[in-house]
């Protein structure tokens, strides 16, 4: 934020724009909102990712084991219901329900948002982890079982390590979707990147610069994740020992 100030002093053809940036972001220290928003967006996204992967993994394993263990059938049914219900409700509605009904006494929206986004994400994670597990040749499970491994042991030692190559890229895509989806966190009074931009727009009467900055932040984050994901996929495919 010192940079535009310097350019302002230096003058030149862009000095008009720098003056505007100064007025929008520096005056009243409005840039601090953007920093807080950025931090919150990252916190919510990562928190939701952890919850989502955990839920997804549990559901995927329960549903997989239930194919062989009749006692797990009711639990698998509950998992199915969860996935169906969550996938049928828009994220914003889910977020409002969590904030105004389930956690109606919550003062801070951030933990509520993390839980809501995590539970939403878990439903999608469950499906993609399951399809990753199903992508591993059925002969692998059979070979494990034929040696005397239980279904869970064969899953842990034989099938899952092979499923990871299918699952990790899919989780990366889900992470990108999740990051962008957190832009509705402002509905429950959380200052995320989007809300911060909107607040700055409101306070500074400058719509162009705050919103463009918000768009740019998401874009850069997504490009960064895409790049990392590409690297990861290349590494997984060169490690292919088939």
């Amino acid at each position, binding site marked *: 934020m010192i940079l535009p100030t310097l350019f302002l002093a230096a003058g030149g053809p862009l000095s008009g724009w720098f003056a505007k940036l100064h007025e929008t972001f520096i005056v009243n220290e409005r840039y601090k909102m953007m920093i807080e928003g950025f931090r919150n967006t990252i916190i919510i996204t990562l928190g939701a990712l952890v919850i989502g992967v955990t839920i997804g993994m549990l559901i995927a394993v329960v549903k997989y084991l239930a194919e062989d263990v009749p006692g797990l059938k009711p639990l698998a049914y509950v998992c199915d219901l969860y996935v169906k219900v969550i996938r049928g409700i828009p994220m914003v509605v889910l977020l409002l329900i969590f904030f105004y009904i389930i956690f109606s006494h919550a003062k801070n929206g951030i933990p509520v948002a993390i839980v809501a986004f995590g539970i939403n994400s878990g439903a999608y994670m469950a499906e993609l982890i399951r399809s990753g597990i199903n992508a591993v*040749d059925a*002969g*692998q499970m*059979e*070979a*494990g*079982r*034929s*040696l*005397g*491994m*239980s279904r869970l*042991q064969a899953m842990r*030692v*034989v099938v899952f*390590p*092979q499923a990871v190559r299918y699952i990790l890229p899919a989780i990366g895509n889900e992470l990108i979707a999740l990051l962008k989806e957190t832009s509705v966190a402002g509905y429950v009074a959380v200052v995320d990147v989007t809300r911060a931009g909107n607040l700055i727009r409101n306070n500074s009467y400058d719509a162009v610069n705050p919103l463009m900055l918000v768009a740019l932040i998401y874009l850069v984050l997504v490009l960064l994740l895409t790049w990392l994901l590409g690297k990861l996929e290349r590494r997984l495919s060169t490690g*292919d*020992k*088939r």
Partner: protein
Amino acid sequence: MISVKNLQKNFGGVEVLKGINTEIDKGDVICVIGPSGSGKSTFLRCLNMLERPSGGQIIFEGDDLTDKKIDLDLHRQKMGMVFQQFNLFPHMTVMKNLTVAPMLLKKVPEEKARAKALELLGKVGLADRADSFPNQLSGGQKQRVAIVRALCMEPDVMLFDEPTSALDPEMVGEVLDVMKKLASDGMTMVVVTHEMGFAREVANRILFLEDGVILEEGTPDHIFNHPENERLRSFLAKVL
């Protein structure tokens, strides 16, 4: 060692096995032959309950495997299985493929498991491939490793599900040689195969399966030289 009593298996209303009865004794080398779709593989896969029978019983060393209360995993440790498609674990080295089950299930110390694996690898001529990954091996080498993987659990019986059907012709011999050696060492074996030469030479009993039943069984001499059943005769005429 294994008694099969009135074994039946349906797949969605299709009767694949229609009541199979046979006894497998210690030291037996039994070859199961028959046209494709006759139920040979299903029969074999029922023996270690990879397929759950729809009816009948499998009595293995005195325990009924179809009993829901039985600990199948424990019994499967004593029944080695070799698959047509090898099914080696592609993410593990050959050594890890061989030691993972004994270490996990029988709590064999790593040193001991590795020594045992190396010894058996040596017997099939692959001691120098211990650190290779399965994708670096030929089909014949993969299948020999798969046989050793099953042997590392020190099973009482070995089940072979068309072990040479997925191999290039020039690699069939090396796998059959390993199986012959195993048979002469006294291993109890049940082999589903299309290798009539192997069946004739190594088996002490041959089951001819067609349409989900054992149509004829007997010594190789009986099956190949004095077949009684018309269907067996026409099958042999086609494959020999």
